Structures are given as C-alpha cells and as structure tokens.
C-alpha cells in the first residue's frame, strides 16, 4: 500500500507538472483509491512482493476459501476478463464464464457500487503487474464446494442493486452509507449471519463472531454500540487505529493498517456521520453483578495485581496507549470472545503512520487459569459503568480451544 501511495504521489507530481489534464491518470488515481477503500489487498495479497496475486485463506464456518489472483495475468489472474465480466462479478457474484462466487467475496456489498466507480476500479486493475500465481479459491468440503448451490444461496441472501441515495438525508450521510454498505463492506464482519452465512439484514452491523474475534456492534446503542462515540472518536479510530476506547486489534488492525488509515478525511467523516445516525438494536442493558459476588471479588484482586499498572485503577486507561476499560461499549458486547482472546493470548495493537507505537497486550494464559481469566473479565464487564453477562471458565476454554 505504501508503495502504491508513493507511486501515486510520484504520478501526481508528473500530472501536476504537465499543463494538460490527464484523464487517464485521474481515472487510475480514482481506481487506486477505490481499491484502498475496498481493502482489496486484505483477501487478495498474501505476499507484499506479489500484490493482488491472491491466496489469502479465509476461514468460514463452512470451510476454507482463498482470495483470487486479481492481477491481469491471463492464465491465473483475470487477464482474459472483460469489463462486463468484472462488473458482473462485483455486482452479481458471477464471474468469468458464469462461475459463481462465494459470499466471502462481498459482492453482496459491492453491488451497491456506482457504474463510474466500477469503471475506475477496473481501469486501475488493468495497470497492475500481471503475476503468474495459481490459486485454488474453492477449498470447501463437499457439499459446499458445489458452486451451483450458490444459486439458491443468492436467492435467499442477496439483494442486487446499486446504492440509492436517500434524498431526505445529507450528501455526507449518503456518502457514508455508500461507503459503509458498499466498498467498505463493514457488514461482512459486523453483521450477524444466518445459518447459511448470509447477512441478517435486520441485524445490520449489530456485531458478529468472525475468525475467532467478535466484531462489535456498530449500531447507535449507547451501552454496546457507537452511541457514546463521538464523530471524532470514529474518525480517530479509523485514521490512527486508536481512540479513547480502543486500539484496533485482530482483523480490524489489518483493515486499519491497509485501508482506513489512508481514507480521505471527508470519507471518514461521512462514515462517522452515517454510523452515528445508525439504528439501535434494542439491546437491553443488564444490571451489573454485585461487587460482593465471589467472581467479582476474585476478579478485583486479579485486576489490581495484573491489569491496573497499565489500564489504571478504575479502568480509566492512558490516552493513546492503554485503552480505557471503564464505561466502554466494547467491554459490554454480549459475546466476550475478543476479550477472552486478548487476555489469554495477548494482542498487538495496530501501527499506523499517525500512531506507530503499536503497544502490546501481554498474554496471560501462562499466569492465569481459565477461572481467573473468567473472573477478571467478569469483573471488568461489571465495574465502572460496564454491565455484561459474566464470563465462565468454560467460555474461556472454548475460545482457547478454538485458537489451538
């Protein structure tokens, strides 16, 4: 991504030196930015030296899929595709020669893209270096590996159609909606899925487990969603990876590292505007556990001994380095998968150009057993304005088993 940006900058320089307009370059630059918005690299680049040559493995509940080679290589990439092939793949999930794409390729979101954006993105793809790299995209077991099953899947789970602006809303809101629902494909991780792996539309961005992490609720709920986040909190998180509540970790760290840190300010603000006006998912706010609860008492001791040096007594955290735990919607998610994972296995926050520190949360599974991890998380989830279901030792064991 950095190489591409450097290239863009160099080309921009050339463009600005030339006295005439450079429509071809402008279209390339727009397409390059669209690829950043869509984070194409997340699934299509395994090795930075072979950009977009595919091969990234995507673990789905049905088995493994791999991102395709999308370079213009004729044999292993999409070099023999036409624009119409590309357009159909992006908006209908049907590739070259009628081959159907699995929903892991978020065509269910990209279908919202405008014709112009599709053309620009296609123009940019034509400029990629063709790389000969064979990728077996479909590594699913029988019967999921039968692509014709996708006809029924699409019928149930896919609504085709370009984004239609809401005339009652501002241009900024509409831009945000277009980005969140379309290229940004936020719902791919943050929308809970039905038994077929399709989005539950009425649960758009309400939170979901993805690749062993819980992608949190991005709705307007104050307790578990973005209700308390300011527009600036959202922009800061996406731009720098850091805000008062969180440092991006896990799959979101990759999304920030490769994509959102490079989004234009106006696009980040548009996303924030749209998310801030999102719907609530009617989360019932539970009552916190009593401090006298045995789990809470044990958790308080562990917190003081193991956590408070960085996260501070009272969970207030330290700006830009140790996230605040008090009154933090991310702590209150109904599903504690991410919290269990971070405490037991540790995690390293994202590094961005704006915030290169990338502080690490150490792994505690060597010093705390499952019951202790459950107790300290139960304590954090029920202290300082937080309230959420207690975590059990078996919850901890399940997450740890999944990580093995």
């Amino acid at each position, binding site marked *: 991504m950095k190489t591409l940006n450097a290239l863009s900058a160099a080309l921009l320089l050339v463009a600005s030196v030339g006295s005439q307009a450079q429509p071809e370059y402008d279209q390339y630059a727009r397409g390059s930015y669209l690829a950043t918005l869509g984070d194409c690299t997340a699934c299509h680049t395994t090795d930075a030296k072979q950009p977009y040559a595919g091969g990234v493995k995507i673990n789905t509940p049905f088995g493994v899929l791999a991102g395709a080679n999308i370079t213009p290589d004729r044999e292993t990439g999409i070099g023999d595709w036409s624009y119409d092939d590309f357009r159909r793949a992006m908006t209908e999930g049907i590739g070259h020669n009628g081959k159907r794409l699995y929903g892991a390729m978020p065509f269910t979101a990209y279908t919202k893209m405008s014709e112009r954006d599709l053309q620009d993105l296609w123009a940019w793809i034509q400029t990629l270096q063709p790389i000969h790299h064979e990728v077996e995209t479909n590594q699913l077991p029988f019967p999921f590996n039968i692509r014709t099953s996708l006809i029924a899947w699409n019928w149930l789970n896919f609504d085709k159609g370009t984004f239609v602006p809401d005339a009652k809303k501002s241009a900024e809101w509409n831009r945000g909606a277009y980005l969140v629902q379309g290229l940004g494909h936020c719902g791919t991780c943050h929308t809970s899925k039905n038994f077929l792996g399709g989005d539950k539309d009425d649960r758009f961005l309400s939170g979901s487990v993805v690749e062993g992490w819980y992608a949190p609720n991005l709705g307007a709920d104050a307790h578990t969603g973005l209700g308390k986040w300011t527009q600036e909190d959202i922009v800061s998180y996406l731009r720098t990876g850091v805000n008062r509540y969180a440092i991006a970790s896990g799959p979101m760290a990759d999304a920030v590292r490769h994509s959102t840190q490079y989004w234009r300010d106006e696009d980040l603000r548009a996303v924030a505007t749209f998310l801030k006006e999102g719907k609530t998912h009617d989360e019932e706010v539970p009552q916190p556990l009593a401090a006298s609860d045995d789990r809470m008492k044990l958790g308080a001791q562990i917190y003081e001994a193991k956590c408070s040096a960085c996260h501070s007594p009272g969970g207030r955290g*330290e700006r830009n380095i140790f996230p605040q735990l008090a009154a933090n919607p991310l702590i209150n998610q109904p599903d504690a998968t991410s919290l269990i994972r971070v405490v037991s296995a540790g995690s390293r926050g994202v590094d961005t150009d704006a915030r290169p520190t990338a502080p690490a949360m*150490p792994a505690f599974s*060597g010093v705390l057993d499952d019951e202790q991890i459950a107790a300290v998380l139960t304590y954090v989830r029920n202290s300082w304005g937080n309230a959420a279901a207690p975590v059990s030792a078996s919850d901890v064991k399940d997450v740890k088993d999944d990580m093995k």
Partner: protein
Amino acid sequence: MKKLPKTDVVVIGLGWAGSIIANELADEGLDVIGIERGPWRDTARDFNIGTVTDELRYVMREELMLRTRQNTCTMRNNPSQTALPMRTWGSFHPGNGTGGAGNHWAGITFRFQPHEFQLKSHLTERYGADAMPAELTLQDWGTTWEEMEPHYMQFERVAGTSGYAGNLNGEKRAGGNPFEGPRSGDYPTPPLRQPYGPTLFAQAAKEMGYQPFPVPSSLVSEAYTNPYGVTMGPCTFCGFCTNYGCANYSKASAITTVLPALMRKENFTAYTNCEVLEVLTDSSGKKATGVTYVDSSGDTWEQPADLVIVAAFTFENVRLMLLSHIGEAYDPVTNKGTTGRNYAYQTANNVTLFFDDKNFNPFIGAGAVGMGIDEFNNDNFDHSGLGFFGGGSIRVTPIGSAPIGYRPLPPGTPKWGSKWKRALKDNYLSTMSIGCEASSYTTRTNYLSLDPNYKDPHGRPLLRITFDFAQNDLKMAQYCTGKVAEIAKSINPREMIVKPMTGHWSSVPYQSSHVVGGFVMGADPSTSSVNKHLQVWDVPNLFVVGASAFPQNPGYNPTGTVGALAFKAAHAIRTWYLKRPGEMITA
C-alpha cells in the same frame, strides 16, 4: 567478502545516537542502513510485563548487556601495568541490541551546564591558570550552550522528559534547578510524584538553605505522544528499571520513542546481529568508503556508503577508530595523537542512612525518580583554595529494592546466620541512601588504546582501558561526600555509612556505565578528534557520535547530552554537510 550495493548512509549502532541520526537522515530522503551488533529488541516482544520483572535474568545474568564472549575490554590502572580482560561486567554495563544502553539506563536526563562547554577557559578565567591542578587535561568542547540548547530541547521532546524547569528563558523558577542553563521550553511532562525518601531528603536540604529540585527524568509522568507520534505510558514505580527494559512504555529509549517511527520508513533498513569490523577509507585515508561487517552466519560483507556515522557505545566508537587507523592513536608518553585521548569516568559516592522509625517502602522505585541539589556540583561553588575542581549531583533516587540484590546492612553485621537475617529484616524497610554522582576529570595517563595481548573472536585486539581516579577527583569526592553527610546527619539517622570514592579504580563493583571520551570534540585538531559537528577532522564524510566526544565528564549523567549531540550532528549534516558533501563544515 561480498560487496553490497552502495547506500547513501550507513549508521553503526542503533542505540540512542544511531537511531536519532538514522531517523533524521531518513527524513532527509537519504537511503539509510543501520548496523547493530546485538539483536532486535522491542517492548512488545522482549519486555513483556509478565516476564520483565526478573532480577536473576536481567541483573545477575545481564541479559541486556553485551556478551563478554563477543567483545570485552582489558583494564589496568596505569601504563606500567599489564592489562587483563574483563570476563564478566562489573564497573560498567555496555548495552547490546536495538535501543542499546538506552534500554537498561536509569533515565536521569540532565543537561550539562553552560560553563561545562568552555570548562578549561572558564576555570582559567575564574581561578587563574596557576590554580589548575597539573595532572588535569581539561578542555573546551568547541561549542557553546547556545548551540547545544535547541538540541537538548529536541531530545527531551522525543524522550518525553519529565521535570520542572528552574530557568525558563532566563527566568529563575522556585522549585526547579537554579543552576541549569536557560531553557527555551519547559520539560515535556511534569515531574514524577516523589516517594518518601526523596521527600525527606528535599526537606532536610531545604532546611539547610539548599534548593532541591525533582531530578529530570525520561520516565514519563503521564501519557505522552512525542513528535514522531509514538506514545509512552506513565511510570508506575514498579522498581524494575535500571538494568531492565521497561514493560510499561514509560522509560524513554530508542525502542520506545524513535524506532517505531523509523522502522516504517522505506528508505531505512536495519541489520541486526551484525558486527562492524572496520570503517573503510580510500587510499588517501581522507574519505570513508563504507564498512565491513560480519553477520550472524559468520559471513563478512562490505557495505559501501557515501556517509558513515559511527554511533556505537563509547568503547566501540574508539576501538573502531583505532582498528580503522582513523586519527592518530594517542600516546601518553609523547602526549601526541588524539584517538583514545581524554578518557574519563564518573566518581560515585554514597551515604547510607539507617533508621529505626521510618518506612521507605523501598520496593517502590524507578531509575530516575528523586530529588537532588546542585550546590556542590561542577563549578556551582567557589573552588578557591580547595585544591580541586569539579563536584557532584547530590540526590536521593530510589531505584527499587530488588529481591536478590538489595541488602541494606549496618556496619558490624555478621556475613551470615541468624544475626544477618535479623539485621536484614530490621533494616530492609527503614534504610535510605543519598548518592553523589560526581565529575571525572581527565589526565594524561587515563586513555584508551588497543590491547597488545588479547583479541576478540575475529582476531581483532580488544580495547584496553588505562584508568585511575585523578587525585583531583578523590579530593573532590571527600569534600562533596562530606557535604552529603552533613545533610544526612540533619535527618537524625540511627547510624550511617559515609562512602566517598577512595583508592584506585576497581573494575569489579558496579559504579556507573558513564564511560566517556577517547574521541573527543573540540576546536583544535591537535587535541580533539571531531569538530563541534561531530565530524572527524580530515575525514569529512565520517561522523563519530556519542559520549566518546565528551572531553571530560561533569557531575551529571551523560544520556541527555548524547541525545543532544546526535541531534546536533544530524542538524549539521542536514543544514550544511549535504550542501557541500565531502567537505569539512565551516559553519
């Protein structure tokens, strides 16, 4: 030996000085390669809070220090002796790996005082040429406070240094150090909160008419984001600080403040576990052409470069220059030559106070939290008729009473048995100590050279240290430690141990890692190795940066000045050198 493609800049050592310069020159758009003899280290991987509080590993077994098997020094007290190699570190701790000694330092971040930079001229003017003890070879630095100040500021802003300014733009402020030079800006973070010991000391000092101040510290007191966007967290006084890497991102080092930003730059590359063997010069000897280094597989490489920056630890800076035949090796008999000249150390003095009725909770500590006074440091007091120059920084800085090493025992305690145990139990909580980190002034026979007998695994001679305390410094130690004892006495301890530095330098007990000089800066090429921009005389594309450039050592810790010199050299390269590469800077 294989030859690699040429690069713009090669930097030797990725501790404080090397990382700072590499980052500045990468910002200039140059292709920079940093070569570090030790391993890659970073906080997230190496200094995990769950494993870092391990005294056996980091103190007893010296995890962060250079392995003496890889490289060590030989030592003797005077030129008539035959030096012997140090097979375990004692007196000092050379660091190793990215971050260098900046990982295991205490964090004390003094600026040297304005008069230090013209020390010889200043003392001569104030006391007359006859007052100068004959044994001393003090020198001016060839630079001034005014030239240094902006670079101290740069370093403090990168390190997040905490403290309280005593002299802000010439205006004296009560509560700060009244003896510091005028600062152009306050400390980036406020002073740390003080434990009981320093508070008690400050109170006693104040009652005696002194002006105590919080010791300036690069352990940040609150979350701080530096100009590179790198964030540090506040110090928690965990007590595992000096000799350890910081797990809380609180202690400034190259790895917590510079390298996270530097490593993102595509025009910077780090080679770790690669030891530089030699700085290469062309046939004229006036132009550096690159370096040779050996990697962890034992293969030797040549890395050509247009500009070479040597920024290793003091010892290795000097040794590399001797091995590369750059400058003339110093000879104490003829008093000619500059490479190895004016080696100095630090004079460590101490008073320990035993109480019956006080609890210092000594496990609460940090490398650089404390209160100090400067009334008896450097030339802050009248030396007329005293027969010595120099002085020390008097202070209480509880570093944390680690479980293995901290054994506060009053005089007369048996070496073992139940009485030993009883004494330890009785005194563990109720003992404090006042230190006096004092100046070390240079003499003709204190110098660095190549050892004629002992070699490293690559067959290169080890560095030989010839050092003993100057008579000047021993007199100073008596005087200043006496002043410390007066303050100590006023606190009414049950008993105390007064321990000024006496006798000969021993390489065995740890004293200080503040080894300085040997490739000193100055205005006169006959008595200095580098000019005021740290540029080697007669080899214009070679800069040697670090405490090796100090012509003598004042009564302060060196790191703040090492950082400032690194920024100063980088500034000179960016502002002047690159406009006329290959020429000596005349600015």
